[in-house]
């Protein structure tokens, strides 16, 4: 599937007639310059700012997987320079993923509420607030499905709940072949390392953004068929579990 040429996407956006984009460049510039969010920033007169572009313009756009691999590889290399051990490295990758999760959450909500391109102005989004997941299961389904599809083009491979009575707060999301690890071969002496800690950070960001205090970690669970199979262990905090009980009793879904 080839992505539509970017310039055509942009054209359709500038012709989209959203409230912000004025009829001509001059006006847009004036409006943009008076935007309250950015009093001090200069903007080009040709409407090339984030306020003039549609948030969905890159929704179905694709880029080369190689480019991602190089960027992610550099992120790993850079992180490695500043850490002392594997755990530290994973922690750092996790921290890099976290803000991404927060941002993706907004994007997911935005898109799940306004799927048709007609209801797109920012005012309409704020008038119909998106459904924030209230229960653990709803949240996990959001991650397993829509989040994974947005990031990796497919759903995750499994979603499980811990069977141990000691750890009812533990859930597992499995990816048989994480995209971030496609080209990564970890040296033997670091075999515990899983660079998908970055994705764990993304998950953590999404959960936190929804008000679910969580710790997420990535673990190698290879099988014969899936050598880079990874399990993301999601551990919800006590406050979440307590709230879960209250919501359960109240019948909130």
């Amino acid at each position, binding site marked *: 599937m080839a992505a539509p040429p970017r310039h055509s996407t942009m054209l359709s956006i500038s012709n989209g007639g959203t409230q912000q984009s004025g009829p001509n460049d001059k006006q847009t510039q004036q409006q943009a310059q008076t935007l309250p969010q950015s009093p*001090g920033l200069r903007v*080009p*007169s040709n409407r090339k700012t984030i306020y003039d572009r549609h948030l969905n313009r890159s929704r179905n756009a694709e*880029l080369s997987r190689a480019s991602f691999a190089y*960027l992610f590889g550099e992120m790993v290399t850079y992180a490695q320079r500043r850490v002392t051990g594997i755990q530290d490295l994973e922690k750092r990758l996790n921290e890099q993923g976290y803000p991404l999760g927060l941002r*993706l959450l907004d994007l997911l909500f935005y898109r799940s509420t306004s799927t048709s391109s007609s209801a797109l102005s920012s005012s309409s989004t704020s008038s119909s607030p998106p459904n924030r997941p209230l229960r653990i299961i709803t949240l996990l389904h959001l991650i397993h499905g829509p989040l994974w599809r947005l990031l990796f083009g497919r759903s995750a491979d499994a979603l499980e709940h811990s069977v141990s009575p000691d750890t009812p707060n533990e859930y597992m999301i499995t990816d048989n072949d994480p995209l971030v690890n496609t080209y990564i071969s970890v040296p033997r002496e670091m075999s515990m390392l899983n660079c998908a800690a970055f994705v764990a950070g993304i998950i953590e960001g999404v959960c936190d953004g929804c008000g679910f205090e969580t710790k997420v970690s990535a673990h190698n669970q290879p099988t014969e068929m899936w050598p880079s199979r990874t399990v993301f262990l999601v551990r919800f905090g006590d406050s979440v579990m307590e709230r879960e009980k209250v919501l359960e009793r109240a019948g909130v879904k």
Partner: protein
Amino acid sequence: MSANKTSRIGEEIWKSVNPQTPIITEKPFSIYSTAFRPRTQANQLFPRRTRVDKVNAELVTLTYGTIVAQLCQDYDSDYQEVNKQLDKMGYNIGMRLIEDFLAKSGVGRCANFRETADMIAKVGFKIFLNVTPTVTNWASDNNQFSLIFEDNPLADFVELPDDGRAQDELWFSNILCGVLRGSLEMVQMQIEAHFVSDVLRGDETTEMRVSLVRYIEDEMPPEEE
């Protein structure tokens, strides 16, 4: 060579998924054989493999944004230093990326720097960022040109920090300069690249200036014995 041909190569590689077609027919080799050798672009009818594995563009954009944000944090918003680090990262990427470019495009050595510029814009940027910057503003000695970016996926969703400095000091996409420097060095070209304008800074265009410093001579094998 015709600019159209280069852009067609870039387009072909980007678009079609055509994994198993053997492009080069079998020929006996000779000491001068070019059967393996990348030919001149003029002789190149088709790239060897026309396939780019793809991912969601937003994943790339947001990942890059995270990298820049992390650098700004680690270097306390010393944007000069951030630019330097981005360039360094790009250099590391370029040294690796060139192999992917050569392996997947199958294009060969360029006959001159003008051809190189076309190759960068229409094949390189097309494959790796799905954009085709315009090559323009050639210096009279043909050793310097500008790339003008209509569109820059790395900067989607981006607004620079409103701290009164970022717009004057930070080159958000500076990693691209390093990528060019690293990848061309691997094919024996020493270049210098820097941004001269960026729409993120409020400029009307995003422009990168690329200059050829020198061609790196083939090193001779070390003296034996």
